[in-house]
């Protein structure tokens, strides 16, 4: 049975010399064109982008810290204060997405507004809003995780692996 599970396809024949030459020429042409295109393309402004990502990401984090301190001073223990902060930040990310502001922030901040949990909220709310017109089942519900889905899947897998490591080695 092992043989039948193989991918179907024509048997691999060794390439003739002419075919090899053609293939190499094609690769060479593509590389030459890629070099030409790269010489023309405008460069992303790496330093400016990095600075913007740094300060806007920093502001988001500082805001979260302030909220944590407020919750802590109101009497929540550190664990509960962190959880409450996450809830507030997700709400803020969702609200700003709904108001059409978060994508404007993202345009400037790049990773600075994608990495914090507000960005995660944005990546769920944006498709949910976008696909509302296709209905609540096949639109909102099934498309909601198109961008966040991979983050969740691999996040879960990694957490299971770390859990296993912790279980067996600690």
């Amino acid at each position, binding site marked *: 049975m092992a043989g039948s599970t193989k991918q179907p396809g024509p048997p691999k024949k060794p390439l003739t010399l002419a075919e090899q030459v053609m293939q190499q020429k094609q690769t060479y042409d593509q590389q030459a064109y*890629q070099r030409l295109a790269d010489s023309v393309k405008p460069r992303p402004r790496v330093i400016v982008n990095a600075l913007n990502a740094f300060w806007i990401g920093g502001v988001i984090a500082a805001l979260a810290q302030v909220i944590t301190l407020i919750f802590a001073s109101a009497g929540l223990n550190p664990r509960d204060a962190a959880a409450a902060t996450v809830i507030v930040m997700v709400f803020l990310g969702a609200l700003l997405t709904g108001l059409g502001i978060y994508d404007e922030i993202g345009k400037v901040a790049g990773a600075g507004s994608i990495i914090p949990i507000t960005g995660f909220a944005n990546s769920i709310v944006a498709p949910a809003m976008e696909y509302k017109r296709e209905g609540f089942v096949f639109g909102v519900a099934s498309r909601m995780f198109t961008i966040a889905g991979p983050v969740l899947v691999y996040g879960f897998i990694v957490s299971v692996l770390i859990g296993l490591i912790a279980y067996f080695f600690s």
Partner: protein
Amino acid sequence: MSAPKRVGQHTLQFANPPVIVATASVVGPKEGEGPLGDTFDMVVDDSYFGEETWEKAERKMLEEAVKMVIAKAQLKPQDIDFLLAGDLLNQTISANYAARTLGIPFLGLYGACSTMYEGMALAAMLIDGGFAHHVVAACSSHYDTAERQYRFPTEQGIQRPPTAQWTVTGAGAVLMAPVGNGPRVTHATIGRVLDVGIKDPNDMGSAMAPAAVDTIVRHFQDTGRGPIDYDLIITGDLGRVGLEIATKLLGEKKYDVSKNYSDCGVLIYDHERQDTHAGGSGCACSAVVFAGHLMGKLNEGRYKRILGVGTGALLSTTATQQGESIPGIGHGVVIEG
């Protein structure tokens, strides 16, 4: 059997060059604010155009453009023999549903952003072939419908790279007839699908430039003409990156186009003020620039002869996710004022 209306390998030379009797353009708010804003027939100030969804808005723009071009020629929809139309959406829904409303015999087209020129070439063939009196070629695109199909939801907070282009919201329509007043379509050079291995959907100018250059070079070879024979050579939506690459590639082939070559994607927006990065794109880009700006210059007599090349990136999210590169195509049409 020889083909009497063909010159060279792939260029059609029309025996009785069809006349472009009228053109019409409908655009969205951003295009209306651009440098060509006052050349368009209708600027819609809301990207929903009074509809519930962007798809319905795009369809309505296409319908309006077709109705407008028919009215401008003082005709009725029943006078039109064929409607040739297309758009970027899956199953070309804008064109199909617009044709449902219009009730004109319909041939649906897909040439990505080259659809306008594909339509104009086919319309000219139908008329010069003696199959039709009045043919409308039209196409549409919409920033928001294209973004959600090809890239990200519009509210997603992402940073676009500098090579990214902005899909033009709008629709353009061209009405051709065997006789009448207006510029004439004299030649068409049909494009070949070329793939240079570009895989980045945010860099379509580089993906399309070689196909446009291939069509321009073949057009020159077939007709024995050169850049000097044209007042303007204009590509559809290569944008600033593609325009520079195409100029270099044509220079390598010893065609100097530094003086009379431009691109609709570069002309339609003010890239610094409007934050459109490398330029405009989409079916409507070449369509509305032709229907508005270029048609105006041809009618004024400012341009006597132009070579328009509609450029299309034959992009599919399924194919690129499976590791395929993005093929490009370019259709050339010569219009004489």
